[in-house]
């Protein structure tokens, strides 16, 4: 019975728990089944709580138990018991979080196998390429890690707290000057204003934003209704200025563009040009209109500075993944999960309970050289 055999294939769940949104689907598919907010309803207080707002390990355990329950019984619609799972995680994911997640999956949900994949590396697999500079701009932070010949160069990692959280805070502050009652707005409304009204402006216009008498006319303002009774004004200046925080250098002269260049500086001299010509942007924040174009302008601007002149980079090239950027890392996990890698490299339940730990790259026990 060929049909039966095709169905009896083990369905492998691929999970990418982000700070803001969680991507959930099955291996070998081209898009996640769902992208939902990483939050659960707390039964005690009957409020919505985000997973990242956990207080301690016990609290995180309970939050993740509820969250994984929703994922399996509302979206996957099968029992996780004795089934494998692929988890896509950032290389900079807190140890507490990944270990608690593994504990929830193994102890509470009794999964059979767990395969943890680094998001920067697997995101690259959507391109079929092996060398690229991967920049992931998420909710909390932007992380750039170069991947050379299929290996993430961890010592060249760059991370800055430039993500949608800082944009939301910035937008709230900017709106506050024009309107009243902004402080009480929930973050979901701020996010909606950001998504529907704001964009990344051009470099020339950005220079005019801080000038007292700008020579440009700002984009038209938007009247945004709140709850059907109130209307707040999102001025053109705010719409253009919100994302500037990603490109303005901070006190250490660091911003999104210097992150990429610093990461390139830290890798081998022969790979620098190749990395500059293979840049992959992933994460939900990079989907905003104008993001890529502006990042390119900024990169060229930074090249003229003394500190990056030695790089001798002539051009920057960007990859277009065959999917939307906010689930590129998930898609990479789905591609890896479709292969035999699961049976070869995954951590089994027996091994987990025997060793009672999760392999991790900073741990020297997992970093030995294999003589192949």
């Amino acid at each position: 019975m060929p049909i039966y055999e095709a169905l009896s294939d083990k369905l492998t769940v691929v999970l990418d728990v982000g700070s803001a949104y969680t991507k959930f689907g099955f291996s070998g598919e081209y898009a996640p089944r769902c992208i939902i907010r990483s939050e659960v309803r707390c039964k005690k207080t009957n409020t919505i709580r985000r997973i990242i707002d956990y207080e301690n390990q016990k609290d995180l355990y309970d939050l993740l138990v509820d969250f994984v329950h929703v994922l399996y019984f509302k979206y996957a619609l099968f029992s996780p018991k004795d089934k494998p799972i692929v988890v896509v995680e950032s290389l900079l994911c807190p140890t507490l979080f990944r270990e608690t997640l593994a504990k929830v999956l193994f102890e509470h949900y009794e999964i059979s196998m767990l395969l943890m994949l680094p998001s920067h590396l697997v995101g690259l697999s959507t391109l079929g390429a092996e060398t690229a500079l991967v920049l992931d701009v998420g909710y909390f932070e932007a992380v750039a890690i170069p991947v050379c010949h299929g290996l993430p160069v961890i010592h060249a990692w760059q991370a800055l707290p430039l993500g949608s959280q800082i944009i939301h805070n910035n937008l709230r502050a900017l709106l506050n000057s024009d309107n009243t009652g902004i402080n009480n707005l929930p973050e979901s409304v701020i996010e909606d204003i950001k998504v529907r009204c704001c964009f990344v402006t051009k470099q020339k216009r950005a220079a005019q934003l801080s000038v007292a008498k700008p020579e440009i006319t700002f984009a038209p303002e938007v009247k945004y209704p709140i709850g059907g009774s109130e209307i707040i004004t999102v001025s053109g200046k705010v719409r253009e200025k919100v994302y500037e925080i990603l490109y303005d250098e901070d006190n250490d002269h660091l911003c999104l563009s210097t992150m990429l260049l610093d990461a390139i500086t830290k890798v081998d001299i022969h790979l620098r040009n190749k990395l500059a010509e293979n840049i992959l942007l992933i994460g939900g924040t990079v989907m905003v209109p104008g993001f890529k174009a502006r990042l390119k302008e900024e990169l060229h601007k930074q090249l003229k500075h003394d500190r990056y002149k030695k790089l001798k980079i002539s051009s920057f090239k960007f990859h277009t993944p065959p999917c939307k950027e906010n689930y590129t890392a998930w898609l990479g996990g789905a591609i890896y999960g479709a292969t035999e890698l699961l049976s070869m490299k995954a951590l089994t339940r027996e091994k987990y309970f025997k060793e009672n730990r999760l392999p991790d790259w900073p741990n020297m026990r997992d970093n030995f050289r294999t003589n192949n």
Partner: protein
Amino acid sequence: MAHVVGPEVVKYACTCGLLKSISSLYFCRYCCQLRCGFCVCHEVDSHFCGKCCENLPSSEARLKKNRCGNCYICPSCQQELSTRIGSKGPSNPEDPKSTPKKMYYLSCLYCRWSSRDVGIPDQSAATGGWPDRENVNANRLQEIIEMYKAMVLAEKQQKEKDKKKQRGKYLSYTDRTGVTAAALRKRIGLPVDIQHSLLKAKPKEPEPAIAKEDVEDLPEELLTKPVNLTEVTTIEQRLLQIDLQPTTVEKLFPVHKQLSIKRSLRCRSCEHNVSKPEYNPNSVKFKIQLFAYYHVPEIRIVTVEPLRAGRPSELIIKFTNPTQHQTTITILSLVLSGDENEVKEETGDQPSLPQEKQPPSLSSQPSSLLSLSSRQPSITIKPRPVSQEVNADVAIPSSKVILPPRDDAAEYDDSGDTHNIQDDPKLVVWRKSNKAFVKLLVTPKQGLALNTEIVAGFTMQHIYTNTIATTVENREPDKHDHNIRVFLTLGNLVGFD
């Protein structure tokens, strides 16, 4: 049922250490323990569509990606879409008498979105044939997946070959089986008959993606044209169509409705079901329902005197016996840590490995079909200590309360109770059929601030009559003493008058 027993002022400590109201607890008859949604194993029983109530086998549900083939939800407001009839001219334009041709379109009754808004042509059949869109990158992604599959497979085969080679170094089969062909070739100096690794068929690699220098620019119209918010999609609308994520409303397409499931719950320590629904999605009944509400005496607060720090107040609670057997309730003092130690000895610090557990005997399984599959026994999780703090003392009465069995007919019988039970009048205030009001004295602890929420606790011991026929000879039903820790939220502390 939550609203019947709510607000949750009486909470029972589940075996796992969580506090729940009686309506969200289960009682495993085989272990004689309370279970709750947290400490049972959830299993998917059947898939169905919540709109058309169609029951789908799990394989079909998997094929359809857990979505109903016929029902759609609105891409704008996520409510269910209904099919509407819009007539579109007569079926035969030359004959004016011919009946008008019926055409169907999808419409949302909540937000007035319709499939005509986005230019989906009306369909001639009511059940659909609505166009489904394919992922534009499907071909490319399929190629990449195949490439990675082949690559990993090649790596795996190489590894296995290496293993074989190594084994060959130490083990010789020639002694036992005579000279093998490979060994013979080696001996006479011919090259070993292994293909060169470069000559082997390598997995075909699709060309890697090529990065481009020019990137999509900021659309100029964003700078000049005013934004019409009703035309820009929200993030929820975008995430409903994950592979497209449209930014404008004219690209919203109807979405297949997500299927729902019926769940059965299984006790993790004895592998028996504590709850199993009927298969039919229209039925709200259960095949197995071991809810605590039907097995454990229910406690409700009747009255409580104003609570003052250090002063005893009178508390009247009602016990109801839900079972068909007489039970005796003894109120014992609360032991918060005792149970915990007991369990620790059993399971140790680490959760026990599945191998250590005896597989459940199949003969006692109520649903043997499920358990016959390769189901591994569950891991027992160490119960956690109860997190609730108790700030009032309950005076423990010395006598017991007898509760007669539940008798539905007695509810309508005004002639009075026929039970002749000698009660301690200090303890039992009132009783009728299977219910009894019990008076307790509660003393909030000294030194509590005003308006502190007072929580009192005690251990309720009741005699549970197990009706599972264990053996043929043993006709007498099993009687167990079963202890449950109960926590009562009595209200806030008031000041002295």
